[in-house]
């Protein structure tokens, strides 16, 4: 639809189909309508201006005239009366707009947004309760630090000569790190002294497997 603003027409025939007139003035003009897209007049001024129908629009009046002559004058008078009163019968009303493709259904949008907020708040509440509140509540209720009690029969037994055992373990580990040996002889995996391994990495870089 073409929009025409603040235009003044004087002494002209203006075809109005499909136009949106805003703040226009028509002085001694003839508005021609041919049955196309309805024109819209916003804050327009009409002075000594007539109307002329052409094509399909003209045929519409001719059709009513034909029905009038065929004896349906009561029906035709009813139509003319409705036009004068600005009333349209249900069958004559424009089709309702497809709400799925036109405009924004703000009510539905608001409902969807509210639902999303509610779900988000609920999820966050459960996360907070599970992570923060419930453990804290347990600790506060018991009035003691949280601890796990281990039955005595599964606790490790420490040897009486703990120091000697510790020293021997240290020697054994030192020997393990400083000597060659097999990790898995069947698969051909061996170990080398850790100092040699360090030097090899410095010389050759990290191995790629």
């Amino acid at each position, binding site marked *: 639809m073409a929009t025409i603003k603040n235009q003044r027409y004087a002494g002209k025939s203006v075809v109005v189909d499909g136009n949106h007139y805003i703040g226009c003035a028509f002085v001694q003009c003839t508005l021609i309508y041919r049955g196309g897209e309805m024109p819209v007049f916003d804050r327009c001024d009409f002075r000594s201006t007539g109307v002329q129908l052409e094509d399909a629009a003209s045929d519409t009046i001719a059709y009513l005239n034909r029905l009038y002559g065929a004896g349906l004058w009561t029906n035709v008078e009813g139509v003319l009366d409705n*036009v004068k009163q600005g009333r349209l019968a249900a069958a004559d009303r424009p089709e309702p707009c497809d709400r799925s493709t036109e405009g924004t259904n703000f009510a539905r949008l608001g409902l969807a947004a509210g639902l999303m907020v509610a779900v988000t708040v609920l999820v966050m509440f459960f996360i907070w309760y599970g992570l923060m509140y419930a453990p804290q509540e347990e600790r506060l209720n018991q009035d003691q630090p949280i601890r796990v009690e281990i039955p005595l029969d599964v606790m490790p037994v420490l040897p009486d000569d703990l120091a000697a055992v510790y020293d021997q373990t240290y020697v054994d580990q030192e020997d393990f790190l400083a000597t060659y040996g097999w990790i898995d002889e069947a698969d051909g995996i061996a170990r080398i002294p850790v100092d040699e391994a360090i030097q090899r990495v410095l010389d050759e870089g990290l191995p790629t497997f």
Partner: protein
Amino acid sequence: MMMDEVKDKIFRGEVVTVDNTAYINCDFEGAALLYNGGTLPTFEKCQFEDVTLQFGGSASRTLRFLGQLRGSSMTGAVDRILDGARMKR
């Protein structure tokens, strides 16, 4: 455009799209005559009983256009056009 021709038919309680059709010796009983602004139909020796008139397409837009203009200070011009529906041609 060649018009369709319908003869000796009874239309009962249905919506009949009348554009571009010549009706000869037809009966319309409780039917709705729907006109969309196409080629004018003709009715020869037809009977009408309890019919209603419906308008679609260009015809509907024309009537709405006239109604809109009439409400915006162009009453005289519109009424002259509507009177044309009653005039003998």
